[in-house]
C-alpha cells in the first residue's frame, strides 16, 4: 500500500472539509423544518409518499404564498431508514439548523418518537407526532413538548371497536365475538394492546394478540393461528411491508376482507396495490380523505408540477400517505402561523412554535381557505389535551381507490382518557416530572 498517497489524500480531505464548513453563512427570516424521512430500506414504500407530501406542501407555501406570512420556509431531509439510531443522529444533526433552530420535529416513527421525547423537552423543540408516537403524550400536563393530534392509537382502537359493535348490531352483541389484533412487534404495534384489553373486558369479546416480528415478511405461522381461531374481526397495526404481506395472506386463506380492518398506518396504497384483486373490500381507518380531488391538490399540481397531473401522480400525489404528509405539514405550518400572531412575522424558535401548537385552533373556515375542505376535521389543541380525540373514519379499498365506508366515529373518551392520564402519571413519577397546572 502506498502510504504517502494515503496520507496525502486524508490530509486533502480534511482541508476540504474545513473550508466547506466555514463557508456556511448565516441566514435570516427563514423558518426551518427538519424532515426525518425514509426513502430507502424496508419501510421505503411507506416513507416515500410521506416525505413527498411534506416536501410538496412546504414548497407550495413558498411558491404560492411566499412562505408563511412572508417568512420563507426552509427544510432539509435526513434519511433514517426507520431506524432509531439513525433517527437520533438526524435529530442531533438538524436541530440547530436555520437561524433559530428547528421549529418542530416530525419523527415519523413511533420508535424514534420515544427516543426524542426526553431530548426534545430539554432542547426546547416541540415534537408533532401526528397519530403515532407515545399515546400518553396526549396528557399535556406531563408532556409539555409533545403533541399527537388528531387521535392516538388508543383512541383509534376504541373507535374501531365502536365500528365493530355497529357492524354486529350493538355493544351487547360483541360479547363472545373473537377479535384478533395482528400487530407489528414493536413499541408502535403494541401501543393499542392495553386499550383493547380493557375494552375486551368491558364488552366481553375474546381478544387474541398476534405479534409479527420486524419487518414482517414472514407471517405464515401467524396466519395459521388466525385460521385456527376463525376470528369475527381482525384489527391490524402494521407498517411497511408487513401490511401487504398480511393482506395477501388473508386473501390466501379466503378471509373475508370486510372483516379485516387496518389502522391508519395499514391503509395506504402501497399496502393494497401489491395484493391486487385480493385486497378488494379491505378496510382501514383514517383521519383524512384520500385522493387528489381537494383544493390543496389543485394548487400543488398547478404550482409544483406545472399542471402536469401525470407527473404529480408519479410523485404519489393523492395517495393516502402522501396526503398524510401534506396534512402533517399543514398542521406544522398552522402552528407556526398561530405563533406568529403572538410573536410577530419572523423566524420563530422552538419554544415559540410550541406555544403555537398548544394554541392551535384549526377551524372549518381555515380548512376551507387552505384547500382542505372535506379532507380534514377541525381541531383545537389545549394545554391539557394534546390529542383532541378527533373523529376517525373507516375507508374501503375497491380495487382502484379508497372511499369512506362509515360515518365519522368519535373515540370513547371516557375509557381512553383515564388510561392516558394513568400512564402519563406513571411516566412523570419515573422521570421526576411535576405535572404543570393547566387551569
Amino acid at each position, binding site marked *: *500500500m502506498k502510504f504517502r498517497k494515503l496520507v496525502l489524500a486524508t490530509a486533502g480531505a480534511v482541508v476540504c472539509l474545513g473550508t466547506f464548513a466555514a463557508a456556511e453563512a448565516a441566514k435570516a427570516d427563514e423558518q426551518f423544518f427538519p424532515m426525518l424521512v425514509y426513502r430507502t430500506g424496508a419501510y421505503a414504500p411507506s416513507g416515500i409518499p410521506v416525505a413527498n407530501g411534506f416536501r410538496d406542501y412546504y414548497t407550495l407555501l413558498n411558491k404560492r404564498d411566499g412562505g408563511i406570512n412572508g417568512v420563507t420556509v426552509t427544510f432539509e431531509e435526513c434519511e433514517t431508514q426507520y431506524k432509531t439510531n439513525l433517527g437520533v443522529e438526524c435529530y442531533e444533526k438538524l436541530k440547530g439548523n436555520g437561524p433559530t433552530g428547528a421549529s418542530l420535529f416530525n419523527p415519523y416513527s413511533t420508535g424514534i418518537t420515544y427516543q426524542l421525547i426526553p431530548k426534545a423537552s430539554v432542547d426546547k423543540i416541540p415534537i408533532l407526532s401526528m397519530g403515532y408516537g407515545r399515546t400518553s403524550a396526549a396528557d399535556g400536563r406531563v408532556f409539555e413538548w409533545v403533541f399527537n393530534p388528531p387521535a392516538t392509537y388508543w383512541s383509534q382502537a376504541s373507535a374501531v371497536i365502536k365500528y365493530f359493535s355497529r357492524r354486529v348490531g350493538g355493544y351487547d352483541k360483541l360479547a363472545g365475538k373473537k377479535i384478533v389484533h395482528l400487530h407489528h412487534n414493536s413499541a408502535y404495534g403494541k401501543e393499542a394492546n392495553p386499550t383493547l384489553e380493557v375494552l375486551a373486558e368491558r364488552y366481553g369479546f375474546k381478544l387474541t394478540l398476534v405479534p409479527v416480528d420486524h419487518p414482517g415478511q414472514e407471517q405464515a405461522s401467524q396466519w395459521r393461528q388466525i385460521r385456527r381461531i376463525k376470528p369475527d374481526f381482525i384489527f391490524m397495526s402494521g407498517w411497511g411491508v408487513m401490511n401487504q404481506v398480511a393482506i395477501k395472506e388473508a386473501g390466501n386463506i379466503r378471509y373475508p376482507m370486510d372483516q379485516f380492518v387496518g389502522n391508519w398506518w395499514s391503509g395506504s396504497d402501497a399496502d393494497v396495490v401489491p395484493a391486487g384483486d385480493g385486497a378488494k373490500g379491505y378496510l382501514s381507518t383514517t383521519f383524512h380523505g384520500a385522493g387528489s380531488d381537494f383544493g390543496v391538490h389543485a394548487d400543488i399540481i398547478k404550482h409544483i408540477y406545472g399542471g402536469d397531473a401525470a407527473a404529480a401522480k408519479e410523485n404519489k400525489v393523492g395517495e393516502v400517505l402522501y396526503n398524510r404528509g401534506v396534512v402533517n405539514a399543514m398542521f406544522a405550518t398552522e402552528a407556526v402561523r398561530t405563533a406568529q400572531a403572538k410573536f410577530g412575522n419572523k423566524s420563530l424558535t422552538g419554544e415559540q412554535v410550541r406555544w403555537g401548537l398548544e394554541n392551535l385552533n384549526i377551524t372549518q373556515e381555515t380548512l376551507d381557505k387552505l384547500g382542505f375542505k372535506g379532507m380534514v376535521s377541525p381541531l383545537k389543541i389545549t394545554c391539557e389535551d394534546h390529542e383532541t380525540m378527533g373523529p376517525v373514519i373507516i375507508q374501503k379499498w375497491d380495487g382502484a381507490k379508497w372511499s369512506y365506508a362509515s360515518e365519522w366515529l368519535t373515540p370513547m373518551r371516557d375509557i381512553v382518557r383515564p388510561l392516558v392520564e394513568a400512564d402519563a402519571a406513571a411516566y412523570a413519577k419515573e422521570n421526576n416530572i411535576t405535572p404543570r397546572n393547566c387551569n
Partner: protein
Amino acid sequence: MFYREAGQFKTTYQDDQAVFPVLQDKVAVILLILAAYAVPFVADEYWLQAIFIQFLVFALMAIGLNILMGYAGQVSLGTGAFAAVGAYACYKLTTNIEGMNIIVAILLSGGCAAAVGVVFGLPSLRIKGFYLAVATLAAQFFILWLFNKVGWFYNNNPSGTITAPPRELFGVLITGPSASPEARYIVCLTFLIVFAWFAKNLVRGRIGRNWMAIRDMDIAAEIIGIRPLQTKLMAFAISSFYCGVAGALMIFCWLGSAETEAFDLANVSFRVLFMIIIGGLGSIGGSIMGAAFIILVPIFLTNFPPMVGLDISTALQKHLEEIIFGVMIVFFLIVEPEGFARLWQILREKLRKWPFPY
C-alpha cells in the same frame, strides 16, 4: 512522529513486559487519551451525542466480541443479545432499587450479561465454528423475543420501551435527557479506556494465552493441560460482560430509550462482527479502529455531498453511501485481509527501518 525503537534496551523483566515497551508509544497513547478527554471542549453536541458516544459504545462492544472471537476463537452472533441483557438489567436495577449508584448498576448488568453468556457458551464445548455461530444466533433470537414478550423486563409499560431514568454521579447528571453530552461522553470514554486497558492485560497474561492456545488448536491445548470448558466459558463470560456494559451504556448514555429492535442482528451483532473483521481479529487496538471505521465512514459519506455543495436527493445519497461503503470494505479486505491492526503493524515496521524500508 517518525521514530525508531532501536536503542531502547530493556534491563528488567518489568520493562520488557510493559504494555507499551517503546517510550514514544507510551507517550503517544497518553497524549491520545488526553486529547480524547479534551474533545468535549471542541466538539459540538451533534458530534458528541450522535457520533463519538456511539463510537465509544460500539468500540467497547467490539473489544468484547474480539475477546471471544479473535482471542478464544469462538464465533458468536449473539453480541446484540448480550448487549440487550446488559441494557435491560441496568434498566431494572436502576428503576427498581432506590438510590443505586449508576456505575455499580452498569457493572452489575455486565455481570448479568456474563451469566447469560456462560449459559449460551455451554454448547461451545461440543460445537465449533459456524455451528457455534448458529447456536449463538439462537441466543440472539431467544433473548430479544423474551424481552419483547415478558412485560416484567420493561416494567409493563404499554409500548415495551425502556427509558433511562436520570441518575447522578458525583452530583453531575450522567444519564437521562438533561445530562449534558459532555458528561455522557466522559463516562463512556472512561469505561472504554479502563476496559481496553484491562482487556489488553488480560490477553497478555495466562488467561489470554490459554484462549489463544484453544483458538489455534484445541486438542493440542488440551494435551498441554488447558481445560477447554473453563477456558471457553471464561471467554464467553468476559466477552458478554463487555457487551453487557456496552449495552447498558448504549441505553443510558447514548440512545436514552430503546426497544428490543435496537439490539437486533443487523444493527448490532453483524455490525460489531464487521468491526472486528475490518479492525483485525485478535487485537484490542484493532477493535477500536474497526469501530471507528464502521461508525464514522458512513456518517462522513452521508454528510460529504452536501458539504461540497452537491445537491442530490436523500435516497440517492443513502444508496451512494451504501455502495461506496460496501466497495471500500471489499477493497480493504482484498488489500489487507487482516484488518487495520495489521496495517498499523506494517506501518510501524516500515517506520522502524525508516528511511530505508524493505
